[in-house]
């Protein structure tokens, strides 16, 4: 695969050694490459965070917005120019904490954008604070004795809010991730991909997950494909994360509502 859209002059990237964001960025570039989209018609919008540095390494048009406000900006871009393919590149804290309301309301409105959540379970850029996706009893800077709160299930949150395409994938399963990002971008309607990445510098070190390589390969142990998980009992799936496609429904034009005709 040729990475034409990669801005080689900006590399090496700023991410820590072993950061999963680079793997998700590669999967995103490959998905866009497979769809053969016109590079001038693709816009990447990002918020604030480690993950939100990703669009700066691509040759597509990109907007780096306020913390959590990537989805409203993307909505505006899509409304102003519906011909563009708008992709929001955001982190777990950016999308679920500060931008949580924007996420659910964009899903409710069924805006035709794609949200790729680079989920590394903490706020990496500011020093490993707990995010709403940090698993229970994980150690973070803000919870040195273990997080007490339950995390969001981002997939069910988006599905409940009305997203028409929801998938989850992990960075170990790169082909799986490319497939689902490609389907999400091609999907007509609000689509969300929860791309489970890793933060070996903070989350991995605090929780003794081992080196970056060990963290990456361990995804084989704690992730289950949806087709396999459907045949298992809930007891067998404790502590496992299910990956795959969760929601894929055609947008219903009657339900979404057509724009009112302009009054003559």
């Amino acid at each position, binding site marked *: 695969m040729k990475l034409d859209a990669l801005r080689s002059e900006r590399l090496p990237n700023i991410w820590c*050694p072993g950061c999963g964001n680079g793997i998700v960025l590669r999967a995103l570039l490959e998905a866009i490459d497979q769809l053969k989209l016109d590079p001038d018609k693709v816009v990447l919008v990002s918020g604030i965070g480690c993950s939100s540095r990703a669009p700066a390494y691509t040759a597509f048009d990109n907007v780096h917005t306020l913390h959590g406000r990537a989805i409203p900006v993307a909505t505006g871009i899509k409304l102003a120019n519906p011909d563009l393919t708008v992709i929001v590149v955001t982190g777990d804290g950016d999308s679920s904490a500060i931008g949580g309301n924007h996420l659910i309301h964009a899903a409710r409105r069924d805006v035709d954008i794609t949200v790729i959540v680079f989920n590394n379970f903490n706020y990496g850029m500011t020093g490993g604070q707990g995010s709403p996706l940090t698993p229970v009893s994980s150690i973070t800077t803000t919870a040195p004795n273990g997080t007490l709160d339950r995390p969001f299930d981002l997939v069910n949150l988006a599905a409940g809010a009305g997203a028409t395409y929801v998938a989850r994938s992990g960075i170990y399963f790169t082909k799986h991730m490319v497939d689902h990002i490609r389907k999400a971008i091609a999907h007509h309607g609000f689509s969300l991909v929860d791309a489970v990445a890793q933060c070996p510098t903070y989350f991995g070190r605090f929780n003794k997950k081992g080196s970056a390589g060990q963290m990456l390969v361990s995804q084989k142990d704690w992730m289950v494909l949806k087709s396999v998980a459907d045949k298992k009992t809930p007891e067998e799936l404790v502590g496992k994360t299910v990956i795959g496609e969760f929601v894929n429904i055609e947008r219903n034009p009657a339900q979404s509502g057509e724009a009112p005709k302009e009054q003559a």
Partner: protein
Amino acid sequence: MPEKKTYKITHNRKWCKDCGICVAVCPKKVFEMDHNGRQAIVNPQDCIGCQMCVEHCPDFALIVEEVSHE
């Protein structure tokens, strides 16, 4: 019997951060961390061209291409 395919591994030392992911994912133990903790290609002849290291490299530092014998 068909000839064994050979692959050329290009490693961009300037972009590599020695994270060790290629060492962990390679099924043929082509890579190794040397005594300085730096990534090294030790068994390039064993490469089967599966592209695991290329797809998992977060720094876009590896390229694996098939060598054509013509």
